[in-house]
């Protein structure tokens, strides 16, 4: 089949045009099917730092406090202080220039969108998918407020969440996301980066 296409293609187009034609034509016919828009939306849980994929909905710290006490406090503690079952979500602010850095959410996490993404994909255990988008916004607002990163009244939604700057955002090397991919330009060598 591929040989036939090649022969046909050569007779009807110049070389340059052929290259373009092949770039557009899948070589392996009828392997895989096109997902529907609904399938793509339902499957797509990825939320990047720009928050492009964040769904409609919104929440505040106050609303989040209620959801937190019902769904999260059993493992993370009533005030998000953590327990043997789950890490602390509130506090732990301390300078990082020490051999024992405090890698808590408030002290270390670089992006607020990661909080939304992780709650939405992974929480609560065994009940993933049980929280509505507004529940997740509200929980994110609650955690950010308790860590004194946003005021209590701030509404967290698709527009406001990506604008929240986490305290440790500027302490990663390299700083710019566009510079991360090029290990050589970063000076990484033999498995180690500066």
């Amino acid at each position, binding site marked *: 089949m591929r040989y036939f296409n090649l022969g046909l293609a050569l007779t009807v187009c110049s070389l340059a045009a052929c290259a373009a034609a092949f*770039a*557009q034509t*899948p*070589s*392996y016919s009828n*392997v*895989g*099917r*096109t*997902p529907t828009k609904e*399938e*793509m939306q339902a*499957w*797509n*849980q*990825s*939320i*990047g*730092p*720009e928050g492009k994929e964040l769904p409609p909905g919104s929440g505040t710290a106050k609303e989040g406090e209620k959801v937190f006490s019902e769904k999260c406090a059993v*493992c993370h503690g009533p005030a998000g202080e953590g327990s*043997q*079952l789950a890490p602390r979500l509130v506090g732990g602010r301390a*300078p*990082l*220039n*020490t*051999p*024992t*850095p405090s*890698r808590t*959410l408030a002290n*270390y*996490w*670089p*992006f607020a*969108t*990661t909080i939304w*993404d*992780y709650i939405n*994909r*992974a929480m609560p*255990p*065994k009940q*993933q998918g049980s929280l509505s988008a507004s529940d997740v916004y509200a929980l994110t607002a609650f955690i950010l407020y308790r860590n004194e990163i946003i005021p209590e009244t701030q509404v967290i939604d698709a527009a406001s969440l990506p604008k929240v700057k986490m305290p440790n955002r500027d*302490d*990663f*090397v390299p700083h710019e*996301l*566009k510079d*991360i*991919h090029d*290990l050589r330009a970063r000076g*990484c*060598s*033999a*498995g*180690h*980066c*500066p």
Partner: protein
Amino acid sequence: MSSKRSPRRQFLKNGAALAGLAAGAISSPAENLFAADTPATGAEALHAYGQRSHFENDGRIGSIAMWPIVPGARRDYGFRSPLQDSIGIITPASLHFIISHGHEPPDIDPREHRLMIHGMVDRPLIFSLDEIKRLPSVSRLHFLECHGNSATSGPTGDPRKASNATVQETHGLTSCSIWTGVPLSLLLGQVGVQKGASWIVAEGTEEGKHSKSIPLEKAMDDCLVVYGQNGEALRPEQGYPLRLLVPGWQGINNVKWVRRIYVVDEPYMAMMESTKYPSPRLDGKSRWFESEMGPKSVITRPSGGQQLSARGFYEITGLAWSGGGAIRRVEVSADGGRTWKDAQLQQPIAPKAHTRFGLAWTWNGEEAVLQSRCTDDQGHVQPTLNDLAKFWGVGMDYFQLPPATADMGNFNGIQPWKVNRDGSVSNALL
């Protein structure tokens, strides 16, 4: 347990049959042969999927850290591979190290499993496993290694530093397989990556839906979507029925149970990659996305916890690997690093794969410190502890710090083993 008992019972029965024949003495050789080969009840089931000899009992060990998933059910974070008993370069799938961030493998029906590729592409596609198997396959030798392997700090640091540590405890978070699947570049070619795309985000099916951002250049270079490991389907704990393979890069990239690849224009800063895997420096900054594993080697025999039975000849043998390419050279020292000899490299030597080395050695009964250092085909040499300290901007005391301290990933320092006068072998790193 019953699976362990049945081959033993089988062995005892055959043994009894042989003993009976020896006592009988009249039966013909043909009858002997027949009697010994007659399968006992259940033998067919035993041979449907083979088991190792009941004399062989090396296994993975866990207790890297405990991970609370639900109240009352704390789970092991991961399991180390028994490198001290490794033979050649292939790790049996049943002994391959496991890190799943504490999540148990999901029970996936391969007929139901789908891989979706979408995002900045011309033609998003959903593939069934059968469809992926219709595409041209490749098989490649590659190691996988957890970035925390051999670290002196972090959750893997404690047993690693002990003087009685085995190579399983110091280096057991690496394994090597022959992986079979489809180049990711082929699948990305099918969907047509759009201009401006620069990263992919791969996502798993397990409870935590592990998500990892990988630069598009790497995805197009040598990444694979694999369904086979060492000639059979992936094991559940290795991502059955489909996983991503990102050769030479930190284990976290090799998303198991992969169900979705999302083509995007920046890293998506998922939880693990942005908060758990960066390595903090002592100045308070953190390196993130270190990605490639450096050149590394370790002697697996003689190694920590083993015992030399007598003076005389031993082959010093071990494994070398590098995320940067193929291993070009391994040197071995039996005098604590004063003099080095080139070890022999066994074929096959594949890029980003374990390579087996060996060097003839005669133990004279005196104390000896054995160590290996490798060089890859980029010319990069495995570092000493001093080199690492310099690179990380830390003092040598860093390596002595308790394991709760800043965990620096990608530890690839030279590993010394001390052979004591009584033939015992101990960890001489610190």
